[in-house]
């Protein structure tokens, strides 16, 4: 065996600073694109690795073969019968095929296929030298990366996230030559450009990383991340411990090519500001890390990460501290102003905040929410004092017009709570302001505060009913208003609050119907609002399904339970959950599949009978039960029916499945010994009615036909 020669290949796309959020997904894409082409061209490699700094996207291919594999390909030509004429001469079809593939017609051989005999020939593709293919693959990688936003910067109008300024393309020591976006590939790059923008020559891929490190660039993002954590720990060890924020580390990691940690301080007087405010000032405005003192208390230290080596730290520290001081001074100014202004004065200002052009202002929304919470309070029997509830609603969104939220919108709710407490509101009210936004995401924490539960539900159902009334229901994957998240939150809160979850779903539906009545007139009577209620109810059912899917139930289990719930008037959200649990358990039983099959069979017979216009009676005529097995079945089912109804009432679904298991052999016996489709019409009809009687027993409990 000949030993194959392998080398390492390197691609560095040198750019101006990339947005940090763009980088991770693109590293994944580079791998995929390269892998795809290596595979389809038969070029072997041992490993593809990708790296990035803010100014370079790097791909390193280890063990890349010197040439692609030889490949043998069979090419099928014209059918034999049209390839030669009656005299045995090649026809035009054959000659053209041979010409096209650059072979002599005599070289064509017969190939027997399922569709008849054909001419074919075997084409041998010799492998190609890697250095000839690699330019193509590198170009494909560069051209096919996708970014959330792209720009143009030079005359060829090439699009990329930010300008490309240099490209290293090496296979071993050889430069792989190509040109894209006006940049010719080469074997040089630059180091930390804000420090030294001179060219750095890379002789071969293996020494790239070390050479870059000598030029103050840590190319490997994992190494850089560890380095950031290490130097932060080192910097704070004498004063306390850093409040480690992984998302900030991630961001900072892609903002620097070489990190240096600088320990800074701010004036202690700002420690009077809420920690949430201090933290966001540091993180959002300055990408700095907050520090706890040795007693675990928020301190006036913070860590800034400088891009580059540790020289001139004093100058940079002074700068960081000055900027943070200005930010904190601003925040303090907002904070004191907001407190001076109070929350109640903001209620009127909400008249100027548009919730949605067609729906109206936040103020108007709150007026509706007041009516909705009152309704919910009563319907759910929450027994919260209505005046308290009204006050909580009024204050719930007052922080939206505060100066702090204008500067830091992500603190909404959080500031509301802080301000309410400072201004002497009760803890319960303050907490409800923060929690009425819960859950913040589809899987976020639910509100625990009872008032917040009601306001969150009311806020959500108001948004949904209004949005659906102006035709903004969601289609496909687009969901610009986040209606899915809002609806999932709505359902999750109800499922987790037993007082609500135990109510019949029909009651919940009728409450939702009443909510539509609170909408402004222009929303109720426009063409888009037609069927808005029905569409919303359907939307909720879909969300119920997705919530349970997330909880690990299978699609078919959910369908079987949800289908039945949609026809069962007394079914509740709790019962959906307990039936799902019972069904999941029941499916583990050995004979469950057999039961499902039997019930499907019953369903099929009934459906067929309905199509044939057989009148199915509610009651079974006992006098027409002549065979023993149908008598036994009827009386057993009759007895079981009451028991099952009783179990269902008590949510004891496991017992229901026990009962079904008891009956199953009798049904089998019935099918074995009795001919349903009897010649005697009255017998036939009665037997179908008997089957229907059995089926009815489980309607509203489980839809067996949905099970696979």
């Amino acid at each position, binding site marked *: 065996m000949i030993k194959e020669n392998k080398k390492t290949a390197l691609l560095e796309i040198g750019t101006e600073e990339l947005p*940090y959020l763009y980088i991770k997904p693109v590293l994944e894409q580079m791998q995929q694109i390269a892998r795809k082409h290596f595979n389809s061209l038969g070029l072997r490699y041992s490993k593809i690795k990708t790296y990035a700094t803010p100014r370079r996207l790097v791909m390193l291919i280890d063990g890349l073969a010197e040439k692609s594999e030889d490949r043998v390909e069979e090419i099928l030509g014209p059918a034999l019968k049209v390839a030669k004429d009656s005299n045995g001469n090649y026809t035009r079809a054959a000659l053209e095929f041979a010409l096209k593939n650059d072979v002599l017609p005599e070289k064509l051989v017969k190939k027997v296929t399922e569709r008849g005999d054909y001419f074919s020939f075997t084409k041998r593709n010799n492998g190609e030298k890697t250095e000839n293919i690699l330019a193509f693959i590198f170009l494909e990688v560069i051209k096919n990366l996708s970014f959330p*936003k792209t720009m*143009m*910067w030079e005359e060829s109008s090439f699009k990329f996230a930010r*300008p490309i300024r240099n490209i290293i393309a090496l296979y071993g020591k050889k430069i792989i030559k190509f040109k894209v976006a006006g940049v010719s590939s080469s074997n040089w790059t630059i180091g930390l*450009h804000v420090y030294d923008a001179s060219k750095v020559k890379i002789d071969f891929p293996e020494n790239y990383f070390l050479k870059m490190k000598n030029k103050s660039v840590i190319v490997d993002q994992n190494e850089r991340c560890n380095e950031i954590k290490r130097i932060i720990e080192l910097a704070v060890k004498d004063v306390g411990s850093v409040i480690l924020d992984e998302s900030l580390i991630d961001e900072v990691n892609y903002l620097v090519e070489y990190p240096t940690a600088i320990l800074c301080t701010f004036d202690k007087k700002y420690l009077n500001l809420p920690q949430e405010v201090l933290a966001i000032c540091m993180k959002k405005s300055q990408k700095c890390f907050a520090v706890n003192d040795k007693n675990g208390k928020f301190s006036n230290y913070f860590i800034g990460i400088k*891009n580059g080596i540790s020289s001139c730290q004093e100058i*940079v520290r002074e*700068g960081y501290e000055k900027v943070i001081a*200005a930010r904190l001074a601003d925040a303090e100014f907002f904070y004191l102003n907001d407190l001076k202004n109070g929350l109640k004065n903001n209620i009127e200002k909400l008249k100027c905040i548009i919730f949605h052009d067609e729906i109206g202002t936040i103020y108007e929304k709150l007026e509706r929410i007041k009516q909705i919470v009152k309704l919910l309070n009563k319907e759910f029997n929450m027994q919260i004092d209505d005046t308290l509830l009204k006050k909580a609603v009024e204050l719930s969104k007052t922080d939206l017009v505060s100066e702090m939220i204008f500067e830091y919108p992500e603190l909404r709710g959080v500031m509301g709570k802080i301000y309410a407490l400072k201004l002497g509101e009760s803890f319960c009210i303050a907490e409800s302001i923060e929690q009425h936004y819960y859950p913040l995401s589809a899987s976020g924490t639910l509100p625990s505060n009872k008032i917040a539960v009601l306001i969150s539900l009311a806020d959500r159902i108001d948004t949904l009913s209004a949005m659906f009334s102006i035709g903004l229901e969601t289609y496909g994957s687009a969901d610009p208003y986040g209606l899915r998240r809002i609806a999932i939150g709505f359902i999750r809160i109800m499922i987790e609050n037993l007082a609500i979850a135990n109510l019949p779903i029909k009651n919940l539906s009728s409450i939702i119907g009443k909510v539509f009545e609170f909408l402004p007139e222009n929303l109720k009577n426009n063409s888009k609002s037609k069927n808005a209620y029905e569409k919303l109810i359907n939307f909720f059912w879909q969300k119920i399904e997705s919530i349970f899917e997330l909880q690990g139930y299978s699609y078919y289990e959910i369908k079987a339970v949800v289908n039945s719930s949609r026809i069962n008037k007394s079914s509740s959200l709790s019962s959906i959950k307990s039936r799902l649990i019972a069904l999941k358990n029941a499916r583990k039983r050995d004979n469950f599949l057999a039961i499902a099959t039997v019930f499907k069979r019953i369903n099929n017979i009934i459906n067929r009978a309905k199509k044939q216009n057989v009148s199915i009676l509610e009651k079974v005529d006992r006098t027409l039960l002549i065979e023993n097995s149908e008598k036994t079945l009827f009386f057993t089912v009759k007895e079981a029916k009451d028991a099952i109804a009783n179990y269902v009432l008590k949510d004891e679904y496991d017992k229901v499945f026990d009962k079904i298991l008891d009956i199953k052999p009798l049904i089998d016996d019935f099918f074995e010994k009795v001919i349903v489709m009897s010649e005697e019409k009255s017998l036939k009809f009665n037997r179908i009615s008997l089957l229907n009687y059995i089926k009815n027993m489980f309607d509203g409990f489980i839809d067996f036909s949905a099970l696979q």
Partner: protein
Amino acid sequence: MNFQEIIMKLQKFWAKQGCIIWQPYDLEKGAGTFNPATFLRSLGSKPWNVAYVEPSRRPSDGRYGQNPNRLQHYYQFQVVMKPAPKNIQQIYLKSLKTIGLNHKKHDVRFIEDDWESPTLGAWGLGWEVWIDGMEATQFTYFQQVGGISLNPISIEITYGVERIAMYVQKKNSVYDLEWNDELTYGNIHLEDERQWSIYNFEKTSVNMLKRHFNEFEQEAIRLVKEKIPIPAYDAVIKCSHLFNLLDARGALSAAERVGYILKVRTIAKTVAEEYLKTIENEAKK
């Protein structure tokens, strides 16, 4: 280095890079981008390199002279280069050195910041440049202006002169900046800030502003029809500032606000289209 020296050094630096040193445009505007030397001249294919100081007005940012960092009137130093030089980041770093900020000694960072001007129908991608955490400059590769995709692409570099000066002079208040060796920024502008804040927030005549807005909007439309887009553009600048005044006065509901922005954008767009037509016709001659 005093305030006026910083400006002079920047002018000298960019003149050396081949930029003409333009002067401020004689209308009120929110930023250097509104100057026709940027808005109109970034359109079309002719190379264009320019640098200038732009006094900029943001009525809503007024603080009656009481906030050390916020002003309703301030200075931008604006550079536009079309096409954008390949080494523009390096050129910019060198410009910092001339005003006493040696980039090797500071933490200079290019932090993603996509720029958009809804009233001008303009957007671009680029960065905010941070010097030791301070936002010193806006750095943008223009992609569209007046809704028109650009080719070649211009780079716009906008220095916040007061911020940079405060940093260089180590001042905590803009009013303490040394304008020259005798006068401070406060000596020159503090009373302006106080009076203009009163005007912007309390004393403007809303009816008059609205009327003027409508008149200048009509004027822009009329002048475009007359095929004189350059004067028409002045009317756009006027509308934009009138809108800013109305906004600062809190005279617009959210819905009205959106409407006004849309109106300015619409005329900005028609003016840009007409301007492009004129220069293309001229090029054919």
